[in-house]
Each structure stands twice: as C-alpha cells, then as structure tokens.
C-alpha cells in the first residue's frame, strides 16, 4: 500500500535512475566507531523513543480493547472480541462511523479542489500575454489564505461557534442585515439539515490556506515552458488546470488528500468545540467524540478503546484507498522500492 515510489513530478526531482539497491550495498564497509555511533544515534535512539512513547502505548491500547476495563481501577477482565461485536449493534457508534466516513469523503475533496483553484489563480491564472504568471495581488491572497492555519483548532472551533450563534452571531447578523429576516434565530449548528455542512465548512476553512500554499509551491516547480506550450495550443485556464497542473503535481495532491482525510476522520477538537453533544440528532457526532464520552463520562474504557481501534482501521483503510485510486487512475509508476 505504501510502497515508496519515485516521482515524475518536477517538484520532487527524481533521482537519476542509477540510484539502485546496489548503491547502498556498495557502500557497506567495515564497522568502525564512526559508523556504529552514527547508526546508534541515527536509528536506534530515535526508534527506541518512538517505540516506547508511540508504539507501545498503542499496542497496550489494542489489548485494552479486548477487556471490560472501566478505566478507573487496576482490574480488568479479558473479554476477547466482545467489544467489537457489541459495536456492530451500537446505533450511536454506527451513526458516528457514518459521519466520520462522510467527513473523510467530503472534506478532502472540497479542500483540495478549492486549494487547487486558488493556487492556479495566483500562479498561472494571470494575463495570457507576456510571461506565465498569477493575477495581480497574488501574494496578498496567498498570505491571507494561510491565516486560518495559524489558529489552534480549539480556537477555530470557539470562534465559529460564536459566528454561528443564532441571535448574536456574525452570520445571522449579516444575513438579517442583507434583508433575510427569516434567518434571525436560525441555529446553524442546531438544525439537523445544516449542522454537518456548517461544521464541514469550518474544517475546510481552516485547512484550505495551508494546502493552497503547498500547491502554489508545487506549481512553481513546474517549468514555465509547459504552460507556455499549453497556451500556444489554445488550452483555456480550466483545461490547463485539469490536464496540466493536476497530473504534474499529482504526488502533492495525493499527500494532501491523505493528510486531510486523517484530520477529517478525527476532527475531535473542532466538533467538540462547536457541538460537544454531537449536534442535533447526532448529526455531527464522530467516532472520537463517542470514544471520549464512553471512556470518560461512562467509564467504559475497554469499550471506548475498541472504538479507537476501529477509528485507526478506518484511517488506514482510507489511506490505502487513496493509494489504490491513485494507482488505478495511472499515478506515478510504482517501481517498487529503491535502495
């Protein structure tokens, strides 16, 4: 699934094809102090830290998922896969699972499309005469768009919860000011029809700028001649974006998609800040919130941990799917592992 691949994208200049496993082996030499100490510090030390502080806690968590631990006593009984079978019949959890899957489908797609659009406009969307460049004021838009990413998620959630407030929030204030009297008191986060969309908007809002900057940098790595050639062929801006930009920065798009997916599947902090109870009729309830409630309010830590294991599985599955789709649609050739 994760087999590393070389990239054909100019943004990540591919090494000359000579870089092959042989080059690594050729370098094998006698063990010297220099070599030993280097490997100890470069590999063993960080790996030890990683295993102790990341892998081992997760391994223990997987065990807790198979117990009836309450989380507040040292005692627990091994119950095998009972917690997982119970999850299958837990409507609330299934609702949360569905919401998380929905987020994983929508948030990355919308964010990537918006970020690509903005990135294209500020890099190659400028006048068709003269050199290929972005529209005027591109720098300004680029800098502004990144702002939300500088704000901690908890603060983003807090601020938008206030913006969405039915009576004194900014949004309804503006809408009423524009003459939409019917929107006075409309609970954006409290109506099952709008709660999820409103929450998704906030998540997208906070991520778009970051990926815009990422894509801008990638597009700048594309030789201008390619765009000039497209222009001479008469390709419009939209076609240029779809058939030139996207294929050329494909690796970046895939990376973005995966990170956005991981963030969207979790999104605990955003949801907890905007709708701690899970929203109207659990419209915005996600797995991480279910996990949190089950573990800390209900004192069913074993069961909650089982939810976490499912959450991890969903995330892995998502990453796998993105790789698969990428490959099926003809992503950068997979040449297997080098070195």
């Amino acid at each position, binding site marked *: 699934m*994760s087999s*590393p691949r070389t990239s054909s994208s100019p*943004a*990540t200049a*591919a090494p000359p094809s000579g*870089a092959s496993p042989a080059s*690594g*082996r050729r*370098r094998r030499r006698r063990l*010297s102090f220099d070599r030993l100490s*280097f490997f100890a510090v*470069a*590999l063993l030390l960080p790996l030890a*830290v*990683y295993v*102790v*502080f*990341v*892998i*081992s*806690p*997760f391994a223990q*968590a997987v065990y807790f998922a198979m117990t009836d631990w309450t989380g507040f006593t040292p005692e627990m009984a091994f119950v095998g896969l009972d917690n997982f079978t119970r999850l299958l019949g837990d409507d609330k959890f299934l609702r949360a699972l569905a919401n998380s899957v929905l987020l994983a489908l929508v948030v990355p797609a919308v964010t990537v499309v918006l970020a690509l659009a*903005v990135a294209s406009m500020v890099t190659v969307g400028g006048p068709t*005469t003269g050199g290929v460049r972005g*529209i005027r*004021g591109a720098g300004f838009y*680029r800098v*502004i*768009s*990144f*702002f939300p990413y*500088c*704000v*901690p998620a*908890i*603060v983003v959630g*807090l*601020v938008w919860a206030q913006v969405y407030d039915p009576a*004194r*929030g*900014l949004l309804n*204030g503006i809408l009423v*000011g524009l003459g939409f009297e019917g929107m006075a008191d409309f609970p954006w986060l409290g109506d099952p029809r709008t709660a999820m969309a409103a929450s998704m908007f906030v998540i997208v809002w906070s991520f778009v700028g970051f990926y815009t*900057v990422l894509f801008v*940098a990638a597009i*700048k*790595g594309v030789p201008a001649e390619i765009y000039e050639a497209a222009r001479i062929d008469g390709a419009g*801006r939209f076609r240029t974006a779809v058939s030139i930009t996207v294929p050329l920065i494909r*690796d*970046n798009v*895939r990376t973005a998609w995966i990170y956005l997916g991981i963030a969207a599947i*979790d999104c605990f902090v955003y949801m907890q800040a905007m709708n701690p109870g899970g929203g109207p009729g659990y419209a915005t309830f996600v797995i991480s919130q279910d*996990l949190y409630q089950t573990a800390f309010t209900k004192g069913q830590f074993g069961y909650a941990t089982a939810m976490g*294991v499912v*959450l*991890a599985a969903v995330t892995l599955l998502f*990453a796998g799917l993105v790789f698969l789709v990428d490959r099926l649609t003809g992503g950068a050739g997979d040449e297997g592992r*080098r*070195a």
Partner: protein
Amino acid sequence: MSTRTGDRAHAVTSHVLLGFGAVLVVVPFLWVFLSSFKTTKEILASPFSLPANPGIENYVNAWTDAGIGKYFLNTLVVVTCALILVMLLGALTAYVLARFDFPGNRLIYNLMLAGLTFPVFLAIVPLFFVLRNAGLLNTLPGLIVTYVAFAFPFTVFFLFSFFRSLPHEVGEAAQVDGAGEWRTFFQIMLPMARPGMASVAIFNFLGLWNQFLLPVALNTDTDNYVLTQGMAQFSSQAGYEIDFGALYAGVVMTVIPVLVVYVLFQRRLQGSVAQGTFR
C-alpha cells in the same frame, strides 16, 4: 472576444472570487478583534455594535486570569526544544532509511506509517504510565519527549523522500574523500536537504504549537500548561462566568504571535514546502 478583454473579464472574476475568499477569512478575525474591546453586555447586545469605551481591560483580565503570558513561555520552551530534537533525529533516521539497505528497513518504514494513522486518544492512558514510570509526568521535559515521539513519524516520512531524491553520487564522492558517516551527513546531506527541513519544520511548528490532546492528559500541572490548554480552560471558565470579552481578548493574544511569525517567514515556506510527499 480579443485576448485582452477575455483577460480582463477573467481577472475581474478571479479577483471577485479570491476577494470573497479573503473576506471569509479576514472577517471572523476582525470581528473577534473588535469584540475583544467590548464588554460582555455589549457583546450580548449586538454582534456589530462598536465598543463604547474601547480599553484594554479585557486584555488585562485575559492576561491575568488565563495566564496567557506564562503559558506562552511554556509553549515556546516545549515547542522549540521538541522541534530541534525531532528535526535532528527525524533527519538522521530518514537519511538512514532512505540511503542504506539493511534488514528491517521496510518494517521500520511501515511502523512509521502505522504511527501516523493512530488516533492519539488511544495512547493516552498507557502513555501516562510510561511517563510516570520515567518520572517525566507533568514535567516540560516529559511533554517535549512525547511531542518528539509523536512528530517523529511524520518528519521521517516527509524527509525520507527528500533524501531519496538526492543523487547518490554525492554521497559516494564524499566517501571517496574519506569522510565518515557523521561528516557525510552533516556537511553534505543535511545542507542539501535544507529546503525540505524548512518546510517540515514549519509543519511541525504549527502542529506542535496547536497540540491539544497530549498536554491535556499528560501535563495537568497548571504551572506547566501550554497555550492551547490555557485557552481551553479559560474558555470553559469564561463560559461559566460569561466573560466573552476576555475570551475574545485571549483568542487575539493567542493568534497574533503565530500570525506575525508566519508573515515574516512565509516567503521561505512557499519556496520549499512542495518538496516532500508521501511516497
């Protein structure tokens, strides 16, 4: 339609769209900034009213009640130390994984991928015991080590592709010159990976700066709170005391420093961030 008019129409459309986006981004910021000068009653009265007596009272309240100053310093210490460590260790590991072939290489790589997808929640309670037994619980060094460990897989991933793409002749030339592993890495490889390092560092800086779940469970001593914890506590506290004005002031004080850092360094960021991808 001539190219010129087409261009103009397009430019207008682009500016309208981008301008709308910019407004969407900026207006909430301005609104929070404006509200931070209003009293709670003024905030409750109308979302748009201007503050009657703009003063810094809210800021004083937020500064003293929320302890923004101390939390800011804690955050700075933790994030700086963690960032330096994780960049150094991450670069070393990424380099070894990318440039050397040894048994278990693949396994380690996959272990990193797995670590990226685990929800932090799962690890918190076991992690608590790991830290407690190491005597690091509720200490800033404990938080630093944890931050390093959790930012590690991402860093390795990102830099892995970087080191992979460096021409192997470079390393060989160094060896012919008789340079040892340490020298090869620090004098040749690391400088070549600088653009990648810069972008990962910015990624990590923001990620760690905004980290919330780890400190909440592992750093419960209020003296050691980091900024996000302070804000969360302050916001729930402000919710009970209905001090919305101070809440907004706290938000402004949390956000401004990061914005300033970003605006100062944004040129560097955009030139380098594209180089790392999942591979």
